[in-house]
């Protein structure tokens, strides 16, 4: 092997580049591009031969390095010579490396602080004195909590499966019509039955919106006997009325 390569867990291409620069004691502002490109590509090869998953970002950086290298090798045209101000092809990369190095260092400084629950401990439980006063209360609230609360309402839907990358983009309107036909002739339907065995996130969200829309239009009633229990759909309109209805995008205001 031409290079002595130790495969660490690199956080990304910038992390790997910084590692190589440090190992070779290179000047970060004057990187020998040919040398670093060789080592970078060799490391990626080694990672691949170890069957490590190479993220796309690593390959993109490889392409960038090769591109910079080729630009440096090209003879400079007269125009370039006149325009001596032209930026070094490495400049952008150097800036990113310096910036990344700064935050990497800041991260390790943060990690060296006495962390709560790791190095220092506080009373993180209701004191007996106050136990009776605070029950069923939420820690703090932010926008994220709000969305999570909404997500919580659909969380009992089976976890989505992502193996199928090419899922069908279905519209809310399509879904409403599908749900109505699924409901036709039934007394009720569990929410979970609206889905294929391994639904995509998109399908879940669209179905949820469709369900809300049906509730808003008072065509369906949703009932649940316990929090996080099964949600049941009940047709709220007599069937003869439902059959004649057809929704289009304009009515609902969805794209």
């Amino acid at each position: 092997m031409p290079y002595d390569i130790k495969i660490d867990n690199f956080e990304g291409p910038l992390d790997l580049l910084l590692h190589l620069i440090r190992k070779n004691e290179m000047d970060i502002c004057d990187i020998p591009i040919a040398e670093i490109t060789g080592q970078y590509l060799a490391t990626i090869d080694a990672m691949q031969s170890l069957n490590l998953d190479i993220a796309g970002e690593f390959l993109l950086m490889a392409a960038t390095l090769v591109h910079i290298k080729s630009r440096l090798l090209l003879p400079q045209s007269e125009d370039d010579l006149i325009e001596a101000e032209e930026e070094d092809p490495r400049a952008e990369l150097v800036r990113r490396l310096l910036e990344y190095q700064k935050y990497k260092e800041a991260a390790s400084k943060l990690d060296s602080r006495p962390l709560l629950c790791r190095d220092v401990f506080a009373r993180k439980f209701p004191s007996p004195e106050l136990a009776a006063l605070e029950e069923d209360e939420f820690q703090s609230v932010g926008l994220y909590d709000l969305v999570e609360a909404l997500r919580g309402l659909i969380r009992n839907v089976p976890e989505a499966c992502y193996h199928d990358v090419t899922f069908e983009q279905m519209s809310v309107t399509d879904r409403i019509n599908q749900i109505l036909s699924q409901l036709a002739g039934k007394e009720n339907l569990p929410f979970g039955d609206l889905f294929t065995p391994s639904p995509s996130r998109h399908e879940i969200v669209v179905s949820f919106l469709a369900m809300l829309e049906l509730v808003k239009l008072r065509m369906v009633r949703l009932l649940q006997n316990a929090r996080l229990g099964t949600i049941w759909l009940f047709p709220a309109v007599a069937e003869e009325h439902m059959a004649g209805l057809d929704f289009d995008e304009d009515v609902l205001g969805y794209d």
Partner: protein
Amino acid sequence: MDTIDLKPIIEALIFVSESPVKAEQIAEALDVEKPVVVPLLRQLCSDYASDSRGIVLEETAGGFQFRTRPEYAEWVRRLSRNKPFRFSRAALETLAIIAYRQPIIRAEIEYLRGVDSGGVLKTLLDKHLVRILGKKDVPGRPMIYGTSRDFLELFGLKDLSGLPTLKEFNELALEAPPAGDESP
């Protein structure tokens, strides 16, 4: 190890324990015999017994536990009463539904949550996070709810379009969580 150093460690151990700690447990954690620990516990008790302290070390239920001095119970209650409003799950859920589905009537909120939401709605109205937009033109003329200006202020939003969508979250969630993260 010098026994003089053990007292602050014992203090720390009792402080973080959720329930009263037995002398035996402390001895085991410190890898010493119980007779080493007991006199130190007595000393700690008397250190805290002074009137100038707000906390006492009490022997209760066979173990040791810090408690606030009983005389201060009223102050403790006053502090917890003055605490900023904290959301219950029910309140947060209801607020989320109203925020995302407004204008909305109570019956719709209750369909979605599957439980009676009158009480929570009242709390949210009292806290001025939710307001009445009007009455719906259907039999019974139910009230229509929406979020208020205070709601926007609380969440630091300029307007309702600043609310994150479920779609944006699902995009974040699509990524697998990073390996090896074990933070609390």
